[in-house]
């Protein structure tokens, strides 16, 4: 999954940079493999089709949000509004679900994309920091979601086939997982094999240089925020279809777990460097912690409440940050030498 990772070395950082980046990237993958191996040897049924499917089905929403976040962060921006946008989209999807899965999906993703486009326009035009802009639109999306939903959750139609998007399977593979895989493959292709992907990294690496080279910096920004909004919208559709209701109060803190996944995946918050595949690995790593906690409790030897998962996730994030920091510093020193 990480072979598609795009890592762009800056300047003359050379082979050390490449080695460091390789370690950084594969370090996360190794950690994921180790965690899976640990779970597989320790718990019965850890690798059962049921467990794998349910972990992936649940984490598909976070994966989609993190993919959009990854692109935004690669341009040096950030999108705090994704959780609220997902909630808004889940309400839109639920309201339109009686018309069938197609219209509901289309309307919700469109709503998310339009909201993201709004973010992009404000960021690009006013040049206010993305952090502040999307903090404000986080509130706005939540307000719109609550207004549309009349302050309560909106039941979806169970007769129109809408719930298939969240609960259905195709050849035994959950539909949300198929959506997730398609999105990541597309994202990876866009980042690594298109001019747009190069531009995203260029804008994040050095915006001024990007401007001087005549890259459409504004257009790149509009595109990544629109993408992030659309993917958050897609996550909202899955949310509504999986749990049978549009939920205007859901998505709290999604933005921060998405950022954590992106960072764990080795994408630098300063922009210019990033990997789509490693972001997915980051999502799965953070998601598996909860799953393993459940299995561990099932063994009955120790009993940790579900609340431990946030503590462990936080600690895990810290460890990754410290390791990354070491690697980057060593790389900087190597570059100077």
């Amino acid at each position, binding site marked *: 999954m990480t072979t598609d990772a795009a890592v762009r070395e800056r300047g003359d950082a050379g082979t050390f940079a490449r080695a460091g980046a390789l370690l950084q990237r594969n370090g996360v993958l190794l950690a994921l493999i180790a965690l899976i191996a640990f779970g597989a040897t320790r718990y019965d049924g850890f690798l059962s089709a049921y467990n794998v499917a349910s972990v992936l089905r649940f984490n598909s929403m976070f994966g989609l949000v993190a993919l959009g976040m990854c692109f935004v962060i690669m341009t040096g921006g950030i999108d705090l509004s994704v959780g609220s946008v997902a909630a808004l989209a889940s309400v839109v999807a639920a309201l339109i679900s009686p018309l069938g899965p197609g219209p509901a999906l289309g309307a919700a993703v469109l709503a998310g994309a339009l909201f993201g486009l709004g973010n992009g326009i404000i960021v690009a035009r006013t040049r206010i920091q993305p952090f502040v802009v999307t903090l404000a639109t986080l509130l706005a999306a939540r307000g719109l979601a609550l207004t549309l939903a009349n302050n309560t959750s909106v039941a979806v139609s169970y007769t129109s086939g809408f719930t298939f998007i969240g609960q259905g399977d195709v050849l035994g593979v959950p539909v949300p997982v198929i959506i997730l895989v398609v999105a990541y493959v597309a994202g990876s292709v866009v980042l690594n094999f298109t001019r747009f992907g190069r531009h995203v990294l260029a804008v994040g690496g050095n915006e001024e240089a990007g401007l001087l080279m005549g890259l459409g910096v504004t257009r790149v920004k509009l595109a990544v925020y629109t993408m992030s909004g659309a993917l958050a919208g897609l996550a909202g559709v899955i949310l509504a279809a999986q749990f049978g209701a549009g939920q205007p109060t859901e998505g709290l803190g999604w933005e921060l*777990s998405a950022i*954590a996944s992106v960072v764990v995946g080795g994408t630098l918050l300063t922009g210019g460097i990033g990997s789509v595949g490693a972001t997915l690995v980051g999502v799965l790593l953070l998601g598996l912690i909860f799953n393993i906690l459940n299995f561990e409790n099932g063994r009955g030897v120790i009993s940790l409440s579900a*609340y*431990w998962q946030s*503590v462990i*996730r*936080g600690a895990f994030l810290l460890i990754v*940050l410290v390791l990354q*920091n070491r690697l980057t510093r060593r790389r900087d020193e190597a570059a100077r030498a």
Partner: protein
Amino acid sequence: MAAARDAIRTYGAFVALVLLVLYNLVFTPNFVSAQTINVNLTQVATIVIVGVGMTLVIATGGIDLSVGSLMAISGALAGIILLSSQPPFDNPAAKVAAAFVLPVLAAGAFGVFNGFQVTRLRIQPVIATLVLFIAGRGIAQVMTNGNLQAFRNESFQYIGLGRPFGIPFQVILMLAIVAIVAWAMRATIFGRYVLAVGGNERAARLAGLPVNRVKVAVYAISGLLSGVAGLIVISLNSSSDANQVGLNMELDAIAAVAVGGTPLTGGHATVVGTLIGACIMQLTRYTLLAHGIPDALALVVKAGIIVAAVNVQRQRSS
């Protein structure tokens, strides 16, 4: 003409607040009543107290996302102490003293940890404080097993329910904190250091300023003030709920700072501005509610205000 425009930008937040008050004086029935004023000030107090710490952190070019989680930790610890009958907490006076002091110190210690990450580990502030944003609420939930801790303790709850001279105690506390920190930013070396670090960290370092110590100090202060705010919230509710205390506080505090006129890039700070910013947000919400606009739509208006305010200030700085 240019001078007038300058004044509006400099005192923009203040002018906006005055206009809001004037509007309410004319159009909102019963606006001038002790109850209305008290309700609004009570609701704004915790945001201002946390916002003051946030102002200092932002002035150094950082940000603190962990404030809400630290409030939850402080609230959870105070709840545990208040419900405990183990010595030395079997003594009522010791219990109340411990319930005030220990939670605030604990939150301060977590603030030091934030500062440690930012200085020693050189992690970006957004991400560094994200660690405790995630883990902090988990710690509070683990401490209380996610249960609601209901308590009743008049001396402790004075911080949230006391009314000396008819003024809510937390409002007095808020004004005192604003006054002290505003003074410290103007008149002490520490205040100068904070601005210098945020203005140009490299220059500050070369000039021999204790950059790391200043940074650790502002995160510690932010933690301490979050701890105080946590105590106020649980006193008001007569219960501590680790799942709820301080939820979304980081957003409200950052919004108050931004609307109040402190640029998020660091190097400048207005503590009184943060007070005004928080009042603007609160009064806007009140005005909309008083005129029958639902809370959900008020959120959309809030978003517009934040963007507009920051945009005006950004033009000022350039």
